[in-house]
């Protein structure tokens, strides 16, 4: 099912526990993600990117306004900045628990592990894997649930550039199999241009949409595509 995500007139503030200061992250903020559209949100630190993702994931509630995710609570697949794996159980179980909770047949775990190249590690503990391999487990977990909404919270920022590049390509491959509505939060303008249909630049406090770029390049895209570098340059210019 294709899901439209809408944030309408959202207010969100946090109180700094140490200083007691009230920080207004969003005021009357609106953003819409069309069905099957992958939107990347870029912006400096503290511009509310992760808060935006948490609002859509249901991990935070808005102080005012509405967050609509297609009328119900869609199936979410989420890749966090850190893989957030259960280190005490196997790679296969980590993926299977998410599949089972989403009502997906456990038989689908093996194919998704094969797709991310981790078949031989299915019975290993995540702690024996490298950072890139652990993040691939997180990607497998996000896709095995057949997500209606895919949320990617700086998914490759903790990895070295070469590993991150491979995982972006892997993500593109998986996305091409079944497109779904997605939000990518990233500091990396080139990553945003490579993966997204639209790039939204956030800035200010409270945060607002400073600029938007539509990326019309067909998929699969190459990370060497000069037009993506051009978009990347324009995003960086908007950020600075």
């Amino acid at each position, binding site marked *: 099912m294709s899901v439209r995500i809408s944030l309408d007139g959202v207010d969100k503030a946090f109180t700094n526990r140490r200083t007691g200061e009230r920080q207004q992250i969003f005021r009357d903020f609106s953003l819409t993600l069309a069905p099957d559209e992958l939107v990347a949100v870029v912006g400096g630190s503290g511009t509310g990117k992760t808060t935006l993702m948490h609002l859509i*994931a249901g991990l935070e509630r808005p102080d005012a306004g509405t967050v609509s995710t297609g009328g119900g609570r869609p199936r979410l697949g989420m890749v966090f900045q850190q893989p*957030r794996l259960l*280190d005490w159980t196997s790679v296969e179980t980590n993926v299977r628990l998410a599949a089972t909770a989403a009502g997906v047949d456990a038989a689908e775990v093996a194919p998704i592990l094969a797709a991310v190249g981790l078949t031989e*590690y299915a019975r290993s503990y995540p702690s024996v894997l*490298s950072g890139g391999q652990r993040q691939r487990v997180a990607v497998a977990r996000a896709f095995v649930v057949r997500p209606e909404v895919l*949320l990617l919270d700086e998914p490759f920022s903790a990895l070295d550039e070469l590993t991150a590049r491979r995982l972006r390509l892997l993500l593109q491959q998986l996305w091409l199999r079944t497109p779904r509505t997605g939000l990518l939060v990233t500091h990396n303008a080139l990553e945003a241009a490579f993966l997204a249909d639209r790039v939204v630049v956030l800035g200010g406090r409270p945060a607002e949409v400073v600029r938007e770029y539509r990326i019309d390049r067909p998929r699969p895209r190459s990370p060497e595509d000069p037009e993506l570098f051009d978009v990347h340059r324009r995003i960086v210019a908007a950020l600075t």
Partner: protein
Amino acid sequence: MTVTHPVVAEEVALGGGRSPAPPGRPPAADVVGRLTRPLPALLLVGLLAAGWQLMADASGSALIPGLGDVARNLVDIAASGALWDNVRVTLTRVALGFAAAFVVSVAAGIAMGRSEWLRRFLEPAVLIGLATPGLVKALLCVIWFGVSLLNPILTVALAAAPALTINVAQGVRSVDPALGEMAHVYRLDALTRLRYVWLPAIVPDLFTGARLGIAMAWKVIVLVEIFGLADGVGYQLNLEFSQHNVAGVLAWTVAFALVMAAIEYGLLQTLERRAVRWRRVALR
């Protein structure tokens, strides 16, 4: 159908960088290490026994019997069947009481670890439970429940629960909240969260609490059996004491210590090693 870009295929086929080999058989050094691990403890026991024998020889008093006397008493009670009968009775009481404490403590500890309000609500009861002497718990249970099975079970549960609860609560508070968010996003049900998120994460604290709880349980079960029951190791200790048989008291004490050591080394440490096996694998 998936269309694969040539660049994509080439790059993804390279894999994800470093690929540590899956864990294999433990090296020979591990086996040697496992065999020599009990040596320091055995050396201490040997030194204490030798020191005791020297003291017994030097004093020549019946109040400090030699190792031979203690061993003879131990053989006698074992041969008569009294040893196994009474140890079994005591162990059953401890096991039932500890099981009750475990169920209540895990539930209360998780509740206290997750809710600040419940922590404030339950903490005084836990602290009072920790501070109240085992003797008081044993006496009150004897008075209230007499010779019924409920008496030792409740005493052991009351003795073991506070330490277990406080450790479980501490363990839950230290669980990474990021895992809770992951469980929320993927809608893991309560049972799955308990089995795969909470319990494994609190295993070290759970074992610390279990050790403290069992230690408290051993102390109070002996008291309960002395004051209000007609069998069990505590009752037998009291019987030997009333007959002024110090060697008999020591024989039961040694038997009791051996049972405790068997539970610690044979059961608790084995369970703990299995439960945290993933950490050892990660360190290889």
